[in-house]
């Protein structure tokens, strides 16, 4: 009996070890090429479709099967464009299969890091380089993109011909680090404007507001008619406070100087100028924003606005395509957030460099990845991308031939990189050390602007003092 027990024990142990060590079946056949050669796709003449061009094919195309792994963040019009572009790229390069993964924007940096670490991605979507430590900042943590480059995980693209397709200031500001180019940036976006519903404005006889008082009066008119004044995708958190960034801009037009002033103590979040901003933010959060906005997901907000139920939508230019897709006949316009009672202060658009492309330094598919970016950067394809996504172009020859392009055209000379791209918090700063309208009820706990202003400055000062 004892021997039998021992035998059974050893058999169980052996089977466990074998199970643990087992891998893929040894007889697994290598991937076979497709039986039929795919037909090269005809270039579509449609405006938002990528076009076939004379970009050289990848050398691997003649040699071996390649699966090119591409990572992008969720942005429905962009993803839709990329799917079409990928099909056409594959048709031109039949032995390259593009495996594109889409992740939520909030998860992009985490997934990028994980997949770069695992050598599991070739081309990554990377936002324009921002939040770099400035000389007046002490004891701050470098931004994620800088760490990726310092760790040698992104490829140097400096000598690639397609880099020349983009304007030099963009390459310098949004893709260069230590004099080397690591990313090509695909477009700028403004996040400080308001979409307005032309039909509702006409129905209630409301003029497009150019000052803060006019904006308040407009909302009062809509409220009196039981029409929600403004919406935002508050479920994602950031759309509520990003929607009010134009308000900050109308009060502090030079946002680089604002950030430096906050660090040096020349500007305080509870001084008289800032207090005006907080008072207006309270009105924005409590009187302008529609009840229930906190439940609307970021990518559902354009649909909510396009349904015609709401008079205005404080959001970035990247939403324009989604609004048009949701309701093509919907009449809308886009204006800078009128945060000041002086119309001259409301002529600025604030924003950031948005999506870009970078290549994993350790990719085994370097040539295919380069061919992919070269194909994408071809002026015709880039123009189609801009038309589809609505970015303010970063290639000199491209134009934003869409409605949002026409809407922002008068303000493009006044386009400025916004606060969020400059700000780096000192270590030790509290959780309220930001100019966020979402701190006010009903999204947050504060009701008194002075109390909130004092709290925000206290949280910031705590970090500044801790680093002395």
């Amino acid at each position: 009996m004892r021997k039998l027990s021992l035998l059974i024990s050893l058999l169980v142990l052996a089977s466990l070890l074998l199970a643990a060590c087992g891998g893929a079946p040894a007889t697994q056949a290598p991937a076979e090429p497709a039986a039929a050669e795919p037909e090269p796709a005809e270039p579509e003449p449609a405006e938002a479709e990528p076009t076939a061009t004379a970009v050289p094919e990848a050398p691997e195309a003649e040699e071996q099967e390649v699966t090119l792994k591409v990572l992008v963040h969720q942005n429905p019009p962009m993803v839709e464009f990329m799917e079409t572009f990928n099909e056409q790229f594959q048709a031109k390069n039949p032995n390259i299969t593009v495996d594109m993964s889409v992740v939520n924007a909030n998860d992009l940096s985490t997934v990028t890091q994980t997949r770069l670490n695992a050598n599991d991605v070739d081309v990554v979507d990377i936002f324009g380089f921002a939040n770099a430590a400035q000389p007046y900042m002490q004891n701050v943590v470098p931004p994620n993109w800088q760490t990726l480059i310092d760790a040698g995980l992104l490829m140097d693209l400096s000598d690639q011909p397609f880099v020349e397709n983009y304007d030099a200031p963009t390459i310098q500001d949004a893709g260069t680090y230590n004099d080397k180019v690591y990313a090509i940036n695909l477009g700028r976006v403004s996040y400080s404007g308001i979409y307005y519903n032309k039909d509702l404005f006409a129905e209630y006889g409301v003029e497009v507001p150019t000052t803060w008082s006019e904006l308040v009066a407009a909302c009062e008119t809509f409220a009196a008619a039981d029409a929600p004044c403004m919406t935002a995708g508050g479920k994602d958190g950031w759309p509520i406070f990003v929607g009010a960034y134009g308000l900050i801009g109308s009060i502090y037009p030079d946002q680089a100087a604002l950030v430096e002033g906050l660090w040096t103590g020349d500007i305080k979040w509870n001084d008289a100028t800032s207090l005006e901003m907080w008072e207006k933010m309270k009105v924005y959060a409590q009187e302008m924003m529609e009840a229930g906005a906190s439940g609307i997901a970021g990518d559902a907000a354009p649909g909510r606005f396009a349904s015609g139920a709401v008079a205005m939508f404080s959001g970035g230019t990247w939403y324009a395509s989604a609004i048009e897709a949701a309701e093509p006949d919907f009449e809308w316009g886009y204006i800078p957030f009128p945060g000041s009672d002086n119309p001259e202060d409301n002529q600025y658009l604030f924003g950031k460099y948005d999506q870009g492309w970078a290549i994993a330094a350790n990719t085994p598919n370097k040539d295919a990845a380069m061919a992919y970016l070269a194909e994408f950067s071809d002026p015709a394809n880039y123009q189609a991308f801009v038309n589809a996504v609505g970015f303010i172009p970063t290639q000199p020859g491209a134009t934003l031939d869409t409605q949002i392009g026409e809407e922002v055209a008068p303000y493009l000379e006044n386009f400025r990189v916004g606060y969020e791209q400059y700000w780096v918090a000192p270590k030790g700063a509290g959780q309220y050390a930001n100019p966020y309208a979402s701190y006010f009820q009903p999204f947050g706990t504060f009701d008194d602007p002075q109390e909130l202003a004092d709290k925000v400055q206290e949280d910031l000062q705590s970090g500044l003092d801790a680093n002395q």
Partner: protein
Amino acid sequence: MANYHFGRGRARWAPYILLLPGFFFYLLIMFGPSLATSVFSFTDATGIRGAPVNWVGLDNYKEFLFLGQASRDNYGALFRTLIFCVGVTTIQFTLGLIVALVVNQKLRGVNFFRTLYFMPVILGAVIQGLIWSLFLYPLGGPMAQLLGMVGLRSEFLGGPPAEAFAWVMAVQIWANMGITMMIFIAGLQTIPGELYEAARIDGAGSWRTFQNVTWPLLTPAVNTNLVLNIIGSLQAWQLFLVLIGYRNGTQVLGYLIFAQAFGQTSGSVTSAFRQGYGAAASIVLFFLVLVIGMSVQFFLQRREGRVLG
């Protein structure tokens, strides 16, 4: 020793050999990463392969516990974690016991209700979060319509932090009450029917029967449930991520660790990864769980010894 199944001599090694694979995987999957976390907590590691990792001594702990308002916010998260733990444990334990007592009756259709109450357990945090996000949708969701009937409205998960926090607590209880119930049902089914019969013959009512028969004999299930509920709620973070994201006034320690380690604190896509700092926060959470878990375990074992002899 007479009942020792594996006999004497070399055969006595059999149980140890059988334990080896499990022990190996424990070392590989649990103990190894835990040890690595404690080492990382003394570094400025970012988690990015190839990035330099520097030894920073106790700097991460000093920053987490003492640097500026941020450290006081960390204590806020710590306090919130304890509130969450007490609230979830108390309510989940009580509800689980009541439901177990009800569905342990010999009634028609009782299996259906057991399945129904247990069902949320098999859903992942993402599905649980999606269900409740829809249920609590403030623009015409079911709960908003219910409130609307009595003239009230709420932003629910997007509202004031205390309210959002309370909703996450409710979802945590809903999601895990089924496990508590099942453990109690298992405990109830080990109690011999003769004891209830004897109590009834002695004239004990329902409450006296529960007090003197059911409750003492449920002690092992009570202990198991309490320890599982306490540890589970102290470590909770997924539902916070899925339901409300990183919002001031709602973070618990588990979510704070994730957010710090993976650059989720500011909403900015360029946020830095601070896995060394996150590891230090993990060690603080580990000691919190250890102290509370061991204290509870100590008192529960003493009680078990006293009750069951």
